[in-house]
């Protein structure tokens, strides 16, 4: 009845994220939001594709001159793995194992932070090595906007996980916060989905030409 009711792993329902009406609403609303985000990122991708390699003169570097596959590969692995670790966290959430869930979330956050670190390094590298900045050309603006929007999503996702862990550290798992964990992890997967397209469209296809 009550959302603060205490559960054991035995009484814990099968789909805790959708057991309460609030949870069900949150679950659906968040998915719909991701539908909207899909269009948002599609618009950013479209803009990037239209402006790719559009620079004022030949002194500017183009995509294939700058990108480095090893770096992108590492970043991809980090984010992909973090996607798996967050699945583990949800696995334990569904088993009502608060401790393990938090551990896996922590791993996820760690991976995400490393990813962000690499991204900052990467941007910094382009700026100093190639003078490829946000204001140097339309290509630069489009590149940093697309990849930066993704980076901002990563940052928000991390903040979200951390906030959840802090706020619930004393409370433990209940039907009030289970949906919160669940949608945060959905968000995290979505970030990975976007990254799959970024590494494919921006980096890999950018390297090919």
């Amino acid at each position, binding site marked *: *009845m*009550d*959302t603060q009711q205490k559960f054991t*792993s*035995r*009484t814990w*329902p*099968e789909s805790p994220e*959708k*057991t*309460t*009406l609030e949870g069900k609403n949150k679950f*659906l609303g968040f*998915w*719909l939001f*991701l*539908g*909207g*985000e*899909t*269009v948002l*990122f*599609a*618009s950013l*991708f*479209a*803009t990037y*594709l*239209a402006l790719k390699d559009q620079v004022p003169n030949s002194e500017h570097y183009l995509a294939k001159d700058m990108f480095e*596959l090893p770096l992108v*590969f590492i970043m*991809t*692995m980090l984010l*992909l793995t973090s*996607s*798996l670790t967050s*699945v*583990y966290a949800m*696995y334990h959430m*569904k*088993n009502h194992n608060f401790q393990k869930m938090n551990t896996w979330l922590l791993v996820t956050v760690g991976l995400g932070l490393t990813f962000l670190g690499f991204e900052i390094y990467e941007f910094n590298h382009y700026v100093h090595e190639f003078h490829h900045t946000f204001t140097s050309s339309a290509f630069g603006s489009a590149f940093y906007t697309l990849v930066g929007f993704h980076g901002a999503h990563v940052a928000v996702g991390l903040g979200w996980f951390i906030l959840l862990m802090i706020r619930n550290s004393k409370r433990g798992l209940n*039907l009030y916060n289970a949906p919160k964990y669940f949608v945060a992890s*959905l968000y995290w*997967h*979505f970030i*990975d*989905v976007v990254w*799959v*397209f970024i*590494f*494919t*469209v921006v980096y*890999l*296809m950018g*390297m*090919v*030409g």
Partner: protein
Amino acid sequence: METQQATSANPKVNYEYRRKKAKQEMRTHVTSFALMIFMTLIAFIMVMAEFDKYYVFPVLLVLAAVQVVFQLYYFMHMSHKGHEAVSLFLYSGALIGFITILAFLTIVWW
């Protein structure tokens, strides 16, 4: 207000069954993760090998699409029931996004 759904008459049996099912599912997750890593590798290798771009592009896009399907259906559980509205809206969004990208690739040509 209804906040809890009855899952089964016998909680004990139900509990163990659920645990087992979840474990199994977790195993498929790990498998799909391995597949995703594998596909990523192929994608990177293809680019490093410098194949022709008309060959590489479609393959890259297909690999990305398959990976995303894995994310959506396994990691994000869209394969479970109760996702009808979700898929309707996600696919609508994807379709509109696709049209947008298509337009920007064809009729913004300057």
